[in-house]
């Protein structure tokens, strides 16, 4: 058969595409369960980190997560638990940042006057720049942060604001836009939580 002919070219391209795509589909199918478990674990860990709950292994994390109270307020699911006589709520947020959607968890106390913590489940920000929102130093800025009347505000520059009474956090150097978006997302979430938990007077 003429290898440069039209018929051969079409048949060859078809077979090659079919074989490679078939193998990919197979590989995808084989690993599907694992990927789903990994994604579930990311989410569970994010909830626990945001709520400042310490866990050891992944199994332990799943167990603790199962133990959280699931509450449905005005069609929104919140997870709650009691730590040191204080009830805390975790809310799974989703919002737009520079390149795509950021999914994460924000935990607050019962009267929404303090952030308990923040963690990111998934994002599409630039690795090494905006992607640093998931790094610990960035998230730790929100640990026990006081919520002011205007929510949380941002400081451009600096490398970490660990004064938790000033309701402020530092932006990521080189990723001002992503940081600004995070501020908006967090404040929207706080507003929503205030609305849900009924402390908005």
């Amino acid at each position, binding site marked *: 058969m003429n290898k440069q002919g039209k018929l051969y070219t079409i048949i060859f391209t078809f077979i*090659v595409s079919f074989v*490679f795509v078939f193998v*990919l589909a197979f590989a995808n199918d084989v690993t599907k369960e694992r*990927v789903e478990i990994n994604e579930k*674990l990311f989410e569970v860990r994010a909830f626990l980190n945001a709520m400042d709950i310490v866990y050891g292994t992944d199994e332990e994390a799943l167990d603790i997560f199962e133990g959280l109270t699931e509450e449905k307020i005005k069609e929104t699911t919140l997870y709650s638990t009691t730590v040191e006589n204080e009830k805390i709520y975790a809310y799974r947020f989703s919002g737009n940042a520079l390149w795509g959607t950021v999914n994460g968890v924000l935990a607050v106390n019962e009267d929404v006057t303090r952030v308990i913590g923040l963690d990111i489940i*998934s994002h*599409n920000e630039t*690795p090494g720049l905006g*992607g640093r929102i998931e790094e610990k130093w960035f998230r730790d800025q929100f640990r026990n942060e006081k919520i002011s009347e205007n929510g949380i505000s941002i400081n451009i520059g600096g490398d970490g604001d660990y004064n938790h009474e000033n309701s402020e956090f530092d932006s990521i150097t080189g990723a001002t836009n992503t940081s600004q978006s995070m501020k908006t997302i967090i404040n929207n979430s706080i507003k929503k939580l205030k609305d849900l938990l009924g402390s908005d007077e």
Partner: protein
Amino acid sequence: MMANNTARGILKDNLWTNNAIFVQILGICSTLAVTNKLENTLIMAIGVILVMGFTNLTVSIIKSLIPRKVRMIVQTLIISFYVIIVDIILKAYLPEISRALGPYVGLIITNCIIMGRAEAFAQSNKPVISFWDGITSGAGYMYVLLIIAFVRELLGFGTIFGMNVLPESFIKWTIMVMPPSAFFMLAILIWVFKGIMEKKEAK
């Protein structure tokens, strides 16, 4: 051009005399993007090495069957195949790394070094040596990127592989975190390497 096609000749060619980054100036996109952290750079480079090795191997094995007209399309198909495989493996078995690299894994497809080697080498050479060519080309890419990333992470974050090495009082060079600094670093590296090369030639 290729001096000789022995394993040693290829190694020397890909690491030094014909280095993809500082001689052929290929794969610059990823050089600029990933190099502000050593960890991301290393993982990205390993991904490129694997994809390049196996792409070359595959192209070389089926080269006599590929019609000339669709040669490039088939090469791209093979490259994307391996990139997606790498992506799937990372997602399933190394989820943390997959998360850190985010969209960069998919971008390996557009790394022109891979297609360059498939077209320039694997199309006209035997499978095993083509595989070797892919691996060594990738290694040439890796060490240049690691040098750039080392300087950028050290000066930009004051860290090496995420570990603090510089004192607290060190003022971080913000520019090193941003993409433009990769241009400066790359230009300086090309200057240094070319300088060394020319000195050698003059002798």
